[in-house]
């Protein structure tokens, strides 16, 4: 197993493989997202309580899921990079950060757009939105630390360490915010309304989730390739690009 893992981790191999996979994942993402959107906006019935407003779920939930998935992937890649000194893993971690931050921002924006008709305010200290906000700060901290280091090697290791420590803290933060939010569960604050998800409401959501996943893979591989180029300096294989 170790041989193949190491062989896969060699930059030229990853670079070519990614080049091959990007169009496939790109097309899959496009189709899935379009079908999911059509399903969510047209086919799915309106929610009896929130009417058509609930359709924002089809972008909010996938974004929120992807934001956490991106952070976890980033921290795992950084951990691998730190432990086994694999530069490719650091390249993947560096590539995952901007996309993760964008998904987190999307989750916050769509969450507040969804909250406005429900609560009448753009922002309410709902447990999930607050966790999402802290996750955004974790991403911003990661990216600013990476930007503050001019040497790529040092930037990789410093931000990698922050990501690993951060990922240990994410569950703690999540549950402390849930705990904090449940204590103030006065009548005024309704948890982000969770409409009852039935069959024909559910499949578009799953489609959107997989679509967002494929999109994430696409952009991750594109960014990872440029990170690989940045770290390979002048190895021979670059010559025949």
């Amino acid at each position, binding site marked *: 197993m170790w041989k193949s893992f190491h062989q896969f981790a060699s930059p030229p191999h990853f670079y070519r493989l990614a080049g091959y996979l990007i169009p496939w994942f790109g097309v899959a993402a496009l189709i899935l997202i379009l079908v999911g959107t059509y399903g969510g906006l047209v086919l799915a019935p309106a929610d009896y309580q929130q009417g058509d407003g609930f359709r924002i779920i089809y972008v909010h939930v996938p974004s929120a899921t992807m934001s956490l998935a991106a952070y976890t992937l980033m921290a795992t890649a950084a951990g691998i990079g730190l432990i086994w000194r694999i530069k490719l893993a650091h390249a993947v971690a560096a590539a995952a950060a901007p996309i993760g931050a964008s998904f987190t921002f999307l989750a916050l924006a769509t969450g507040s757009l969804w909250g406005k008709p429900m609560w009448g305010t753009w922002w309410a200290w709902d447990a999930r939105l607050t966790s999402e906000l802290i996750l955004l700060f*974790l991403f911003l901290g990661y990216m600013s630390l990476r930007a503050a280091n001019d040497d790529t090697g*040092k930037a990789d290791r410093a931000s990698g*360490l*922050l990501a*690993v*420590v951060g990922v240990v*803290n994410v569950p703690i*933060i999540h549950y*402390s915010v849930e705990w904090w939010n449940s204590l103030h569960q006065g009548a005024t604050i309704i948890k982000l309304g969770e409409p009852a998800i039935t069959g024909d409401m559910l499949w578009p959501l799953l489609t959107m989730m997989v679509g967002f996943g494929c999109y994430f893979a696409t952009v991750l591989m594109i960014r990872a390739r440029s990170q690989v180029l940045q770290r390979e300096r002048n190895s021979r294989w670059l010559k025949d690009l």
Partner: protein
Amino acid sequence: MSGPLSGFGVVLARDLRLAFRRPGEMANPLLFFILITAIFPLGLSPEPELLRAVAPGILWGAALLSSLLALDLLFGSDYEDGSLEQLVLSGHSLPVLVLAKTTAHWVVSALPLVVVAPLLASALYLPQEAWGTLMLGLLIGTPTLSLLGAMGAALTTGLGTGSALLSLLVLPLATPILIFGARGVDLAAQGMDPVGPLYLLAAILFLALSLLPLAIAAAVRISLD
């Protein structure tokens, strides 16, 4: 070269001696803590009901910010004069040495807060029953803040980014401490049993004590590379 912990005492003693050589600087976190706590009543209103309600949040928020205040000096001055290099190459286990430095920083910047806390609590009309919980909560919460802060300081040493980036890195990670600390005091103020949040603070402290020194040592090595 006796046991692995022998370096701990030596570094702790040096850092404390250094801190006491500059008593003015040593008082900064304490003054900052008092200043912040004084500002809120000015910003809100002198009216006891309101202040009593927000007292736990103000006190804990002020404690969090004060413990971050003197952090960029923790490794910064050693980095500039080269003693950080000597520490890393001293042949002692680096996590133990950075734990010693962090302990010295905690003793100098966080302990005074615990001592002064009841004074400020009374200024914010916090009921007397909650003072004990406040002090105990600060006692077991601020070490984690110092450890998290030390890691942020180690990561940003030598980058010349000052405490702005340091706070951005540390504050998100410190939110659970703030939540449990303030909630504990709030429960005690309402006469309820605050033992739950205090246990959670203690649990986080032990997690931090066991893992963070390793991360801080790694961060120091990275910034010295």
